[in-house]
């Protein structure tokens, strides 16, 4: 069991030496998951808010499906995007398969339901509190949505971070649509998978430690911003 301490010291030395390869891979991980979260949030924030306020037949069903899709298996999403983006698929002419863009699309699809479902919950709870006041002020449905999204912004950061955490940690989807091409589509998780299959378990675990450290640092930063902002805005 000396692999685990070995991995931690390896992880530390990788970070300390600013290993160029590691920086490139970690950078790509951040970029791909960052853009994916941006895309997903851009769609999920309005949709989640709309679903929180809208009343229509079948709404409960839609919410149940959305909540269920929070647990979409990455491999399935990857496969779906693969079939769409493959040259033989409907979007093949874009030539996006095995590029970071394909990984962005897959991750965005994967985390869209997570963010949308959390946003729906947050906004619906807030709507309970704000509803009468906003209606009294003659806010339209759209104005109410915008006001709630803005007012819940600090809580919504958590929803977006949940999506980001899921995106940057998943391997199934990016492996399939990215192809784990060295220097092009290799990200932290696919690198970990590769080192595992090479049997270099200490290095694989060290990369895992680095990945976890990245996610923790980002969450700490977001948490810090949130706390400061909440202290300022109440």
């Amino acid at each position, binding site marked *: 069991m000396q692999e685990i301490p070995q991995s931690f010291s390896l992880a530390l030395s990788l970070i300390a030496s600013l290993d160029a390869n590691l920086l490139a891979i970690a950078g790509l991980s951040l970029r791909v998951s960052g853009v994916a979260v941006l895309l997903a949030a851009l769609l999920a924030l309005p949709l989640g808010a709309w679903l929180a306020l809208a009343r229509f037949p079948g709404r409960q069903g839609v919410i149940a499906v959305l909540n269920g899709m929070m647990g979409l298996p990455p491999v399935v999403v990857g496969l779906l995007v693969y079939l769409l983006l493959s040259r033989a698929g409907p979007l093949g002419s874009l030539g996006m398969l095995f590029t970071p863009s394909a990984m962005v699309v897959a991750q965005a699809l994967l985390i869209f339901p997570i963010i949308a479902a959390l946003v729906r919950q947050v906004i619906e709870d807030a709507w309970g509190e704000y509803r009468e006041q906003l*209606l009294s002020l003659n806010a339209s449905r759209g104005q109410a949505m915008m006001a709630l999204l803005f*007012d819940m912004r600090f809580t919504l950061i958590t929803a977006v971070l949940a999506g980001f955490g899921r995106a940057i940690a998943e391997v199934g989807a990016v492996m399939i649509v990215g192809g784990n091409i060295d220097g092009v589509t290799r990200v932290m998780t696919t690198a970990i998978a590769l080192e595992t299959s090479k049997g270099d378990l200490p290095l694989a675990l060290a990369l895992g430690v680095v990945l976890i450290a990245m996610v923790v640092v980002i969450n700490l930063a977001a948490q810090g911003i949130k706390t400061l902002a909440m202290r300022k*805005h109440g």
Partner: protein
Amino acid sequence: MASAASTSAGADIASCILPLRVEALGFRAGDVIALDGVSLNVMPGTRNIVLGANGAGKSVLLRLLHGLLAPTSGRLQWHGGDDADVRRAQAMVFQRPVMMRRSVRENIEFALRLVHAADIDKKAAEALELVGLARLADRPARLCSGGEQQRVALARAWALKPEVLFLDEPTASLDPAATRAIEETVNAMHAAGTTIVMTTHDLGQAKRLADRVLFLHHGRLVEDAPAKDFFLQPTSPEAAAFIRGELLW
């Protein structure tokens, strides 16, 4: 338009949508009858206090009048204006003020922006001046005390220059000093021409503010009288009991 007619707290607010006539208004949620057969008129320029014990139906009545709830029976007839006019000519202050996560000033500007008001900066400043909170304009609204928040809510309502202002137990959770500040503001708004419809279960407050008292008991309007008549010679046993029980409340 009422809101365009006045630019300062002292100016008169024109009467457009009043009087309001209410006939046999009822509200039932499932098996619970919250309000039953309430008929009344709200005349311009009056201060109407809806009195009653907890659960008498005061809040439901206010929400029906303001349009937040739809009646399950009876009807409600505003004198003038189309639906949009009617809605814009009203404002409401709730028992627990809902403050948006922004500054005090922005809370008021938010309300003004929703109705596409002109001169938003000026109107917000005036409203804050009226409630005596100009110095807190840049403070995050949620960090204000309960009393301050309720005054912000009043300023927000006032900025809209409503013809009718509904207040649902606005001082229920406030201390006497804050209560006094709220009552003074309500009177200032009334002096500027706004018609007041306010619920309370505080007899003293009713005595201080009311021109007219509407007494609700178990969802029915048991007494509708000018304030001095109501307090001196209540005609219904329920109202008489309520007044006698003053010290207990």
